[in-house]
Structure formats: structure tokens, C-alpha cells
């Protein structure tokens, strides 16, 4: 009986004082979830994988050049995406990791991309590695490449794609991320074309996602947005995905990286 009365009172309180009271409760949930996050476990497993000898060459990724020189991890993630001379294109973290798997470890692209996005039971290699490498940039300000013509080109393409309406449901990225203070269900939607909203967000990706106990990467984020935009599937590491990540990271530049984060 007491439970019933209390429950009814809560429902009334929520209905009577909607927006602000509810919002603070969502924030409290997010905060408590972030505090009790197992995300560091993914970094630990990622470190093991980074050092593990694999592929036909039985090589680890320890000599992988993420832009700051072979094997330099400190601050490398915060400077991505960027232009890489050896491949003459802009790469984000995952595209570059894949490049290192094929070149250093001698693995085929087909084998290395067989399972890019994992699940709760079996996270993917890319997810673990992303967690580890990103964690090595904590405290470093986001400073993606924005000077090389190809970096500028990527930024422009990303921006165009962000506002490009397409797919069976006519969405662009801005359909959901274009107006401040909006939500999908309970999830707040940052206006990612604005530095104010892009900064805290990009500073905490990639992230552990509590709703399905998985670690999610930026390539996954773009992929899953397009899935819900009802388009065909973007190719992993394609120019479009890297361009969008470039656009978002450049918009967020200057923010100190503090991920990997924890999301709903």
C-alpha cells in the first residue's frame, strides 16, 4: 500500500514538474552510470592486443605510426583524423589501425575487417584497440589535422554530408542534431555543428555503452546513425565516414580529451 501511494506521488511529481525535474534526473542517471563504468577494462584488454604478435608476420602493433611517429601513443588519438603521407589520404583512428594491421602484421583487409563491430559477449579487436589508444590521449587537447588540402577537403565533405538529406526517411545528421535542447526519447541530442555541443561529446568518444554493454567506436557511431537514417550501409573507413569524423572533431577542437567515456 505504501509502495502504491509513493509510486503515485512520484508519477504526479514527474507529471507536474516536467522538463526541469526530469532533465536533472536524466543527468543524475548519466553521472552515476559514468562513475560506475567498467570502461577501463576495455583499455586494459586493448593494451594486451596492441602488444600481441599477430598475423603472418607475427608482429604486434607497437610500431604502428598513428601520426606522431612509430609507436608513439601519447596524444596520438587527439590529433586524429589527419593526413598521412604514406597513403596520401586522411585517416581516422580505426582506418589507421586497419592500415597497420595489413602493413605491419601482414594481414589481409578481408580478414582484419571480418568482425569490426563486436557485441557484449565478444567485443571486437578494433573496439579494444580504440579504447586503449584513445585513453592514451587523456588530457591532450583535440587538434585534428586542418591544414593540408586533403584535410580541408575532408572537413568540407563532412560538413556537406552532415546537412545532406537522404535515405528512405529523408534524414540528414542535422535532422536529429540540428536544434538545441531536443531529445530522442530520453537521449539529449547535441547540435554537433556547434563547437559548444561538439566539444564535450567528441572529448568522450569512443565509449562504453551501458544499454547493451558494448564498447562503441566512432566508425560504429556513424554506421549506426546511417542505419537509423534508413540508408544503405557506409563502408568502414570510407572517405565519407572519415570526412564526417573530421568535421565533428575539427568542430570540437581545443577540448581536452577525457575519454573513453560512458554512454546510456
Amino acid at each position, binding site marked *: 500500500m505504501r509502495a502504491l501511494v509513493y509510486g503515485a506521488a512520484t508519477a504526479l511529481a514527474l507529471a507536474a514538474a516536467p522538463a526541469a525535474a526530469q532533465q536533472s534526473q536524466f543527468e543524475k542517471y548519466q553521472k552515476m552510470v559514468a562513475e*560506475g*563504468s*567498467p570502461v*577501463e*577494462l576495455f583499455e*586494459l*584488454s586493448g593494451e594486451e592486443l596492441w602488444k600481441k604478435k599477430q598475423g603472418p608476420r607475427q608482429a604486434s602493433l607497437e610500431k604502428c605510426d598513428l601520426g606522431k611517429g612509430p609507436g608513439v601513443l601519447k596524444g596520438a588519438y587527439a590529433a586524429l583524423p589527419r593526413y598521412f603521407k604514406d597513403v596520401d589520404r586522411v585517416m581516422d583512428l580505426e582506418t589507421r589501425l586497419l592500415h597497420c594491421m595489413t602493413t605491419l602484421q601482414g594481414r589481409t583487409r578481408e580478414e582484419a575487417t571480418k568482425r569490426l563491430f563486436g557485441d*557484449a*559477449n*565478444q*567485443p571486437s579487436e578494433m573496439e579494444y584497440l580504440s579504447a586503449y589508444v584513445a585513453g592514451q590521449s587523456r588530457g591532450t587537447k583535440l587538434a585534428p589535422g586542418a591544414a593540408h588540402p586533403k584535410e580541408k577537403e575532408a572537413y568540407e565533405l563532412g560538413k556537406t554530408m552532415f546537412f545532406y538529406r537522404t535515405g528512405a526517411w529523408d534524414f540528414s545528421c542535422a535532422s536529429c542534431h540540428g536544434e538545441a535542447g531536443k531529445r530522442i526519447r530520453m537521449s539529449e541530442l547535441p547540435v554537433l555543428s556547434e563547437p559548444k555541443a561538439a566539444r564535450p561529446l567528441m572529448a568522450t568518444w569512443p565509449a562504453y555503452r*551501458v544499454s547493451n*554493454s558494448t564498447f562503441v567506436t566512432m566508425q560504429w557511431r556513424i554506421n549506426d546513425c546511417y542505419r537509423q537514417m534508413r540508408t544503405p550501409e557506409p563502408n568502414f573507413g570510407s572517405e565519407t565516414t572519415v570526412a564526417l569524423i573530421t568535421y565533428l572533431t575539427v568542430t570540437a577542437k581545443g577540448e581536452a580529451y577525457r575519454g573513453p567515456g560512458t554512454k546510456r
Partner: protein
Amino acid sequence: MAAGPMKMRATLMGGVTDVRVLMTHPMETEQQTKGAPYFIQNVTVKVNGKTVVEGQISQAVSRNPVFSFRLKGGAKGDKIEVSWLDNKGESNKTEAAVA
């Protein structure tokens, strides 16, 4: 993926040691596995070899469990050990010094 890594931090602040421990475990419920749940049952916290917390938990604890415990006093360098045992008899433990 059962006995993956654990991670622990033990920090002394204002006379209280805060112990935060992360465990890799699927914590599968009866519903998820359609019959045979798979979960940690016992969590034990020791300080310098002496048991201070004995926890019994169920399949309702979330995947990759994270616990915080608080210890009275303590000193920097005290050895904290946290171990778990699941319903299949697998176990794991981790140690950290209070910082």
C-alpha cells in the same frame, strides 16, 4: 569471455579509503541463457590479508560488475585484495596498494 582483466583503485581521503573495483564477467541471467545463468556469486575484500567485506551477489548485478566499498582509516601502502568466485567455480583476484 569470462575471466578477463580486473582493475582496482584504492584511495585514502579524509580518513576513509575508497576502493573501486572493476571485474570482467558476462553476468548472464537465466533468461539470457535460457536456463543456465552464469554469474559471480561471491566478492571478497581483504585488507592486509584480513577479510573486511564478504559480498554475495545474484545474476541481477550488471555485466562487468563495478563495486565501490569504503574502509575506515587505513594507511597509504595498505594492501587491498579483491577476489570473486562465480557459479561455475571460476575465480579471479586483483591487488592494489592504498594510494
